[in-house]
């Protein structure tokens, strides 16, 4: 209980500091939602040239893009801040976090809960609603459950990728942009039907890392479409398992990383 109050105090302080600079806040809010708007516009621009990409029409592709966007926006809002870890490790400020009697990860997240990313979550779910309306889905209870869980599974999965990528800084302080290849790169990867990618690249990102289960497989299961790549059409229902597995790996990596952390000296 006392712990919860401490977390609430951290989050409250953050909210107050944000609201102290209202104009900056509004600009950052708009800038963040703009990034997601442009991701969706990119898909629309590509469909100006053709009516099918990787064998999928615009409504189907948009469904995949929007499940990923909604999941990513949630993950980025709640967990995305963890990618500041490299600055904390470099400067040694992680020490201050570790000496407090609270969990290190929740503190890092609440120390700078990015309210500016809220509008992006709203937009992500808005596009998802539009995409669901554009597709002719034969609703069954299982599918209702799947569409409810998909953005959350996407959040857990992409959040785990955020944590794993950030943990890289425990071993390689100058890892810099490498993490972005998997966080933002993973989001972009899962924003398109994975049929478009070459076999090796797809094998690596979609199946070895599991990005196929962010939006591609769930969308196929919702649409009742057979997978041109050969997985059973119900494979999308495995998305929660993949998300949980990713979370388990992320937990392991994070704990090992924290134990490995040796401050900066002096």
């Amino acid at each position: 209980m006392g712990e919860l109050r401490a977390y609430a105090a951290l989050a409250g302080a953050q909210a107050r500091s944000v609201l102290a600079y209202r104009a900056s806040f509004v600009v950052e809010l708009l800038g963040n939602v703009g990034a997601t708007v442009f991701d969706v516009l990119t898909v629309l621009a590509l469909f100006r040239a053709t009516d099918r990409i990787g064998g999928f029409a615009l409504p189907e592709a948009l469904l995949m893009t929007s499940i990923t966007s909604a999941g990513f926006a949630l993950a980025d809002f709640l967990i995305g801040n963890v990618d500041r870890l490299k600055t904390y490790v470099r400067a040694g400020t992680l020490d201050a976090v570790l000496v407090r009697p609270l969990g290190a990860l929740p503190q890092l997240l609440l120390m700078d809960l990015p309210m500016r990313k809220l509008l992006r979550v709203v937009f992500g779910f808005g596009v998802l609603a539009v995409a669901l309306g554009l597709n002719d889905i034969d609703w069954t209870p299982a599918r209702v459950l799947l569409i409810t869980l998909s953005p959350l599974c996407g959040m857990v999965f992409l959040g785990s990728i955020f944590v794993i990528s950030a943990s890289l800084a425990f071993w390689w302080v100058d890892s810099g942009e490498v993490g972005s290849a998997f966080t933002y790169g993973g989001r972009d990867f899962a924003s398109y039907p994975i049929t478009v990618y070459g076999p090796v690249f797809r094998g690596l990102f979609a199946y070895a890392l599991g990005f196929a289960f962010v939006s591609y497989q769930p969308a196929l299961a919702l649409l009742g479409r057979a997978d041109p790549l050969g997985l059973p059409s119900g494979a999308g229902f495995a998305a929660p398992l993949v998300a949980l597995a990713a979370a388990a790996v992320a937990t392991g990596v994070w704990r090992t990383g924290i134990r490995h952390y040796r401050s900066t000296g002096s």
Partner: protein
Amino acid sequence: MAGKDASVLTISPDGPLRGSITTFGALAGSGFRRYTTYRQATIAGTFTNVVFGYLRCYVLLAVAASTLGNRPAGYDTEQLATYVWLGQGLLSVVMLWGWSELAERIRTGDVASDLLRPVPPLVAYLAADLGRSAHAMLTRFVAPVVVGALCFPLRVPTRWQTVPLFLVSVLLAVVVSFGCRYLVNATAYWLHDARGPIMMWVLGAGVLGGLYFPLRLLPDWLAITLWLGTPMPSILQTPLDVAAERDGPDLQLALVALQAGWAVALLALAAAVQRRAERRLVVQGG
């Protein structure tokens, strides 16, 4: 003001012009050397550029595969692959993403020491940025292009003038990008905190520069308006279209000329803004 300062500039006994050129060269050299020390960041950034190169290339090739005649927006598949991989390389040469060094120095007051130097800040920062981009051209440009060439058929230039024109276009793109970044950073003279403008710049430059998709996919009237009305397409889209030989020789040359116009206009504007800012600058702190 400028006439007086020229005597300070002349460190070498060879006359003011030679002196200015030597100073400019020395500043560019130091910009180059500075980035040679960020080796790990260079490797990390290149890795990410390559991953995004695969992503964008596969998506655009899939678009081409299902387009009538396999030529979306007038690019064939080799031109598309060239567009993507050279784009991933150029991204860090023109430094499309954030640059907030000047804004930070204005906010902290360090800019005062820039103003004390005998070289105008605009010139000094331009020299350093050209040095930085030369380093990026040798490292971060080459790696994605090599990976792209190994994995995808790229366009081999068919005209003699394409390669020299591309190099000129890259140089102009760096200047145009620098001009924009300088102006965005200079808002800090008035706003103290330029994070908002910088964020808007990063957002606009990516999409209007042609990084996410070639602007030719947009309706003609919109693409032309963007090209003539904003400097962004001159930063990435133009050098890429020049290299991919998307257009005939005349239009190819005209696009580079348009870039040159933007480069001159932005530098003049940045100089004017800098002059105004210096007149009203109050350095904070005691």
